[in-house]
């Protein structure tokens, strides 16, 4: 029998409409959870998703999770909670061909997601890390339930479709309103900053934006975060991974950007876990134990 405080299996979905501009859209029970992180820090992981490139294999999320301390990660973590899936190969079956989505017979448990930074959340969950996490999913088009997946984006012009990652324990789905649900991917980082501001102001959390790869949305986020008013006692830390490609790499090499925002930090992938530890967002190595998850 389930205990009163035991989490239900699967992803706990919270739904929020941003139409109510007078009220913030945050899930308050998750705000309580995030504020309860043992390390008084909140880390926003942002970056590459559907277009990250297959060269990283499946290990991006695991690499980032381990950089945050792996099974000892004890911060609050915000990230996207979607996964993108390549459309089924033509000829797999009639139903797959017809919709361009994996049919029930070829879907759940049989498809592989494209590599993406969002899988950091499911990796932390699989490692049983004490991190407090929430995944954020803006609704980009009509949400549909098909073949065991909650599909949030299915644009015919893309060779992939995007679903909510059901391995993420807690997920906040953002829409504008019921009849006009569509938001942009930028709303994900805007809501992240809402959470982070509250945690910084009321829970005395320190914050870190960790940017890995990414495209124009990640670039927008980094530019916004870099330009936030700097509080010397509690700066808005932004860490770019130099050799991760695309937006994070381009910004780390952008001399004008670095000159304008000298507080922005960058490092190479092999240095990442050490830099995060030095910045105080992960436990010392001696406190970390090898990950035992998948």
């Amino acid at each position, binding site marked *: 029998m389930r205990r*009163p*405080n*035991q*989490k239900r299996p699967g992803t706990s979905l919270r739904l929020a409409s941003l139409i109510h501009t007078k*009220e*913030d859209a*945050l899930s*308050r*029970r*998750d*705000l*309580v*959870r995030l*504020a*309860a992180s043992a390390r008084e820090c909140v880390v926003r992981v942002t970056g590459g998703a559907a277009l990250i490139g297959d060269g990283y294999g499946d290990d991006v999320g695991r690499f980032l999770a381990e950089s945050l301390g792996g099974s000892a990660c004890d911060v609050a973590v915000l990230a996207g909670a979607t996964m993108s899936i390549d459309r089924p190969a033509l000829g797999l079956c009639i139903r797959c061909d017809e919709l361009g989505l994996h049919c029930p017979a070829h879907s759940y448990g049989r498809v592989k997601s494209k590599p993406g930074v969002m899988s950091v959340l499911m990796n932390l969950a699989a490692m049983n890390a004490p991190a407090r996490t929430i995944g954020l999913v803006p609704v980009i088009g009509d949400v549909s339930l098909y073949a065991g997946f909650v599909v949030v984006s299915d644009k015919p012009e893309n060779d992939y479709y995007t679903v909510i990652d059901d391995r993420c324990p807690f997920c906040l789905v953002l829409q504008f309103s019921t009849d006009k649900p569509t938001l942009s991917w930028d709303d994900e980082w805007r809501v992240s900053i809402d959470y982070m501001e*509250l*945690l910084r*102001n*009321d*829970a005395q959390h320190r914050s870190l934006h960790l940017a890995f790869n990414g495209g124009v949305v990640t670039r927008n986020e980094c530019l916004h975060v870099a330009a936030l008013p700097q509080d010397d006692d509690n700066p808005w830390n932004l860490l770019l991974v130099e050799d991760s490609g695309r937006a994070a790499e381009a910004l780390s090499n952008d001399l004008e950007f670095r000159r304008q925002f000298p507080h922005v930090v960058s490092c190479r992938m092999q240095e990442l876990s050490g830099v995060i530890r030095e910045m105080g967002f992960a436990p010392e190595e001696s406190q970390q134990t090898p990950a035992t998850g998948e």
Partner: protein
Amino acid sequence: MVNTTNVPTYEEFFRPGEARDTTRVSSTTGRGVALVVSDVNEPVPAPVLIRATKGVVGNLNVAGATSFRDGAMRPAMYDLVVRLFGGDPSMPFRLNRIAIGSGGTRVLEAPGAYTGTMTAVETPGLAFTIAKTYSDNPDDWPRTWGHAPRTHETLGYGGEESSFQLAEEMDKDTIPNPLLHLLWLLQKGATTPSGWNGDLAKYIELLRIYRDSLEGQSGLLVLSGGGVTAEEVLLALREEIPVLGAVGTGRAADALVYLKNGDLDMIEEDGIRRHYQTVLDEGLDRGLIELFDTSQPDGGQRWLQNMGFGVLL
């Protein structure tokens, strides 16, 4: 083990002239009492939610009498709270780091006086004081908070130390409780005063949000009380929040016996019976009500332990 010499007597706890002294609790953080005012139509403000519950393993609210018709009840209630929360060395009990809240007020000996008196809403500050005798580490101590409706047209400050007051007039005998880390005032807009139940729905919402966060349990302890307290029981049960009644403290707490048995005929006070009748009418889960006799506080301690609020030693 509890150092009983550090548990204050009634007279030490309510020292004459120190009714507004905030240092006993808030000096641990180097701050005063944080004050948040919000409208009942707003969501629970994030600063309230986070400051009340950050890092705690449970959320206990104490409902009950904010005045006593019988003066002898004051030391009796004080003694009960001391024993329930581990201040009696024969019944050692260590409170965990929980949020412990109640009405955010303190009742003075007389209007304008500078000496406080024992009511149910003193429980958080007293429980905090006892918890400190078990540990020197502030990270182990509970977090006290209070909620109160704005019951007058205006708030005010005045008196010898320009103290903040819940009414502009100095002739009131209720002031903000000084033994809190956070005081949350609720109002129905800027112009409309509330009744004394004006804060109930929102603070119960906070208990529910905390429970739903999966960080710990929320519970309600009932010490005496009247119609407002009975309404708190009703609202808590609607949200499936467990209730602990201290039988022997009188009125709403004692009437929980009848509520649990489903027969309200013996309840004399209309305000109490009306809300408990609603509990029956709505078919709310009376199994969530636990009772203990005030002569045997260990029964209450066991409930507190089962809820994750503390540890029997």
